[in-house]
């Protein structure tokens, strides 16, 4: 809705600018016998027929701006997968909570510890650009993945958790659950 209002205003500015151009009168300064100049803040001094051109120019500029602003780049589907592991073969992975920040995505861990996350990311950006962390929290422990750190380590040949990568997917190696004492209730 906002986009249409902005576009409407822009078109109106262009039309009014054209009308002003067609109906323009050039005022000659009696003393100098030159076209009168007006002083507009920011834009500076202009001849009296220039404001109508500025009107048209601004209208076109707003159209381009609103198209850019209201039509974000297309989204690309990314697939992130990996497996959480622990020494307890009967570990109940369902009983934990998998979350990503800042993307609010419903994702879960399967009974074997495997997780698959699909999310849409703006074209041109990577998973590491948009997701600050992945967290799996269970009463028995937790796992935290910082994608940017893993990616940086992967690219610099340092130990990291990335097993495979494509232009829009990441596969993490087996990641061990860090055992933690059972949480206490907050109250």
């Amino acid at each position, binding site marked *: 809705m906002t986009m249409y209002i902005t576009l409407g205003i822009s078109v109106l500015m262009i039309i009014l600018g054209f009308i002003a151009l067609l109906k323009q009168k050039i005022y000659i300064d009696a003393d100098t016998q030159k076209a009168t100049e007006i002083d507009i803040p920011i834009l500076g001094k202009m001849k009296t027929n220039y404001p109508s051109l500025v009107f048209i120019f601004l209208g076109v500029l707003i159209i381009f701006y609103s198209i850019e602003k209201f039509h974000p780049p297309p989204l690309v589907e990314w697939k992130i997968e990996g497996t959480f592991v622990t020494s307890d073969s009967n570990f109940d992975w369902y009983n934990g909570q998998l*979350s990503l920040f800042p993307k609010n995505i419903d994702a879960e861990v399967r009974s074997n510890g495997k997780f698959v996350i699909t999310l849409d990311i703006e074209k041109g950006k990577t998973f590491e650009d948009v997701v600050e962390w992945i*967290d799996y*929290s269970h009463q028995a422990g937790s796992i935290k993945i910082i994608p940017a750190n893993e990616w940086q380590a992967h690219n610099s040949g340092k130990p990291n958790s990335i097993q495979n990568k494509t232009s829009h997917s990441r596969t993490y190696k087996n990641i061990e659950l860090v055992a933690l004492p059972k*949480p206490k209730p*907050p109250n």
Partner: protein
Amino acid sequence: MIRKFAFALIVIAMLFGSTAFADFFQLIDRSGGSYIAHAKVLISGQTQTYYTDAYGRINISLPNGSYSAQVTYKNMTKPVTLIVDGSTQLKILAVN
């Protein structure tokens, strides 16, 4: 035999003496009575950034001592003091 045993004991003592064990903390919002989940914890003088889990827990492997830290959650940053003493018990930290 006794000398070997004594040597082994010394080696074990040296190993344990130089290893920093993880201390476990649980951060709780004193005002809201809730876990401080997924908060960013920056410890003064440390380059690593820590994050709490969904229960507000965090494990920190540092030599024993008192560390001042900044906890960032819900667009707020609050100071806390972490006392690392090598114990394996969960230490509750109520954040104001």
